């Protein structure tokens, strides 16, 4: 399973590096979203700082949709999904590889967006440990849930429009938990950020388990 995961994840990341979709389209899109939020709340800088955590995670969420769509669009042309099925790769390995590649792209994006939030919105990093751990766990949850639902929609002609409808409601707990944990870490809320991180960890564990156990059926039925 792990050998197959490394193989599929490496292939997906190589395809992304070559196509430059992540660097030339997804990353500029993420920065644009942040800038537009900045323009919208420009007259109220205090509000912008207060909302920085939520805006960051909304931007990450929107970009995760693009990353997941891209991950499955490369398996939807010229029989590549049949090629994967014929290879005899372990479906759990395919899931972990594809989710891992999406997560790696999201991590790079979060570093970029985090820098943007600090510079543009003037966010103050009070608890870097909670920030980093929350980001890591939320990223795993987003990538795992996105990969499960991405595979579910992969074989459909309407996948581009259906995928956001499937994924956004499902990952709403990630948006809520990550925003609350980050607000605590940025000193903007008195809530216990670690409890919210626990919720995120549970979400990630559930979807990683669903992916490992259920991806075989999804690959066959897609």
């Amino acid at each position, binding site marked *: 399973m792990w050998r*197959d995961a490394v*193989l599929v994840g490496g*292939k997906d990341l*190589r*395809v992304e590096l*070559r*196509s430059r979709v992540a660097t030339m389209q997804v990353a500029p899109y993420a920065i644009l979203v942040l800038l537009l939020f900045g323009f919208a709340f420009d007259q109220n800088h205090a509000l912008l700082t207060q909302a920085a955590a939520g805006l960051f995670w909304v931007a990450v969420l929107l970009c995760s949709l693009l990353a997941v769509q891209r991950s499955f669009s*490369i398996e939807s*042309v*010229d*029989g*590549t999904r*049949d*090629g*994967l*099925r*014929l*290879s*005899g*790769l372990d479906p759990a390995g395919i899931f972990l590889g594809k989710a891992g590649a999406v997560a790696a792209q999201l991590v790079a994006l979060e570093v970029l967006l985090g820098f943007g939030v600090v510079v543009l919105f003037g966010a103050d990093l009070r608890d870097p440990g909670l920030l980093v751990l929350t980001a890591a766990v939320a990223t795993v949850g987003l990538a795992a849930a996105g990969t499960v639902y991405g595979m579910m929609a992969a074989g459909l002609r309407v996948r581009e429009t259906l995928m956001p409808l499937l994924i956004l409601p499902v990952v709403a707990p990630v948006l809520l938990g990550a925003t609350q944990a980050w607000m605590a870490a940025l000193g903007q809320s008195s809530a216990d950020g670690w409890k919210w991180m626990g919720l995120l960890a549970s979400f990630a564990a559930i979807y990683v388990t669903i992916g490992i156990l259920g991806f075989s059926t999804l690959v*066959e039925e897609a």
Partner: protein
Amino acid sequence: MADMDPVIRFRAAVALVGRFPVLAGVDLDVAQGEIVLLQGANGAGKTSLLRACAGLLRVVSGDARVLGEDLVANPRAVRRRVGLFGHATSLYDDLTAAENVRFAVRAAGGPIAAAGPALERLGLVGRLPTTAVGALSAGQRRRVALAVLAARDPELWLLDEPHAGLDAEHRDLLDGLIRDAVGHGATVVLASHELDRAQGLAGRIVTVAGGMITAAVDPFFPKASMHVA
């Protein structure tokens, strides 16, 4: 050979796409080392039969065994042991020809050292192995897909219109590849509308119509032909 289990053994095999029976009770035996040509009109069920043999199209009733694996119970079991070369190339446009072949070989658990000689055999030399597949011509893409097949060296080759898109030189090369594979113990089933060329390869011709086998002909002994329906 007579006491060996056939590589393909279908009995009253039925496969559905949606609710439509694309295979409507197929009876077929293919022995090891045979080259069998499937012929029939468009929509007769040739591609469906090849996909069923590859474990990609589920057989829902009847008996279907390929390389000893029961396709009705577990169609995944046979996939790593067969190679399917069809209309689609299953290649990633953003990867180079060599990367595509290496990925396919590693995914199938084969030796990565087989990639280089396979590319060379298909005439993919010079800058071609390091060129992104998306930048190659249709014929070159098909040669890369054939290099994947050659490098994987499966026990059963399933070829759907294999000569399409290839020039005369590479059609000859493909025929040589098929004969070599059979020489090394592989079995080949091919579907083709280019009967002149395909009949020169095949040891047996099977006619498919309406999702069933309707006739089987030995091209060297046509009087021994069997008309099933």
